[in-house]
């Protein structure tokens, strides 16, 4: 690691001030992605601003027709929360499958979405549920949040405080893990909400994306049967030593069908 100064603000305002005052600052959430990156000297910052002492951005709350999860809520808390399980069991599954138990004890939701790893799980929930990302400056629609490979709509100095997930009528997340990293080789989040059906895919492309043609089919008939002849084109999907784009395309279609079945779609 390159040297940096460490800060542990007690409030979001204090953190925002620090971000504004330092030459090359970086927010530290759970650190599960950032610290390995720093250890390998793949990035360099003058200051790390640790959000772990800010209680106001932790916790899980049911707020009417939505579930609001604080940015610094750890994966284990989401995976074991009764509130989450009652409202959006797909999130229970998703959070319970991130990394490994030790990573889940430390990693946070906000860190995951701000990092926008193309194979991370949480971005598929934000997009798949049409969630709203609440920052210290504004609210960003899930559809507008993820911009590309490790790229989000967040501006420099902007801090994710929480994500507001609408409670869906039905939803499920199915992950097909990479055998080495155990990240998503492909992960599919499907949800039937009051606003319609949404399908979000992670792991398969440079950035989480929606599968609108599948959404259209499922809007008419939310069942695996509706997808019987559904296929995904490999164009533009990731290809690496673990899988070709062709196999990922196949996996997206299969995981989608399995997700719809898991969500309790009509059969």
């Amino acid at each position: 690691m390159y040297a940096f100064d460490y800060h542990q603000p007690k409030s979001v305002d204090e953190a925002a001030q620090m971000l504004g005052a330092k030459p090359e600052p970086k927010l530290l959430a759970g650190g599960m992605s950032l610290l390995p990156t720093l250890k390998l000297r793949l990035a360099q910052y003058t200051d790390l601003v640790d959000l772990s002492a800010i209680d106001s951005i932790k916790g899980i709350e049911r707020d009417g027709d939505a579930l609001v999860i604080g940015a610094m809520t750890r994966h284990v808390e989401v995976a074991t929360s009764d509130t989450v399980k009652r409202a959006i069991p797909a999130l229970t599954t998703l959070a319970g499958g991130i990394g490994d138990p030790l990573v889940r004890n430390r990693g946070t939701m906000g860190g995951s979405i701000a990092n926008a790893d193309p194979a991370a799980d949480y971005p598929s929930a934000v997009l798949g549920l049409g969630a709203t990302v609440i920052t210290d400056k504004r609210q960003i629609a899930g559809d507008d949040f993820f911009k590309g490979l490790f790229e989000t709509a967040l501006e420099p100095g902007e801090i994710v405080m929480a994500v507001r997930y609408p409670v869906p009528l039905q939803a499920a997340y199915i992950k097909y893990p990479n055998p080495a990293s155990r990240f998503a080789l492909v992960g599919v989040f499907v949800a039937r909400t009051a606003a319609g059906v949404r399908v979000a895919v992670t792991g398969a492309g440079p950035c989480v994306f929606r599968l609108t043609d599948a959404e259209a089919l499922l809007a008419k008939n939310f069942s695996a049967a509706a997808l019987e002849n559904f296929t995904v084109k490999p164009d533009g999907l990731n290809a690496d030593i673990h899988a070709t784009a062709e196999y990922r395309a196949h996996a997206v279609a299969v995981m989608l069908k399995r997700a719809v079945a898991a969500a309790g779609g009509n059969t």
Partner: protein
Amino acid sequence: MPVVTMTVNGEARSAEVEGRTLLVEFLRNHLGLTGTHVGCDTTQCGCCTVHVNGVAIKSCTALAVALDGAAVTTIEGLAQNGKLHPMQEAFREHHALQCGFCTPGMIMSAIDMVRRNGHALDERTVRKQLEGNICRCTGYHNIVTAVQAGAAAMKGQ
């Protein structure tokens, strides 16, 4: 440089560290607790697992300075008054280690598994929950057996 103080294995320990000093470096280099090992640089092998405030984490992926005031238990702190922890005893009894390098992390991780899942652990749960700990010697066979036995033995604790 900041000074951090933690309660490590029941004792207050302080040291001056850099912002970038990892918890595992604090334990190994500053405190001489070399039972916690480093086996990778991508937060996957689990050799560095310790308990922070009662919860198992990978100490290679936590800054020491961020844990000022924490209570840390390492493999050196498990045995009490010369008596092995039941999970340590189970690893020995069931030959769950060969080279022994991953073992401290495995044991710390296994104890946390019991905290999360209780004392009656089926094979599938143990295998799944060991996802964050890699062993190259044992094929995991005896580790799984030991974790199940250790979990049951911890019930009497």
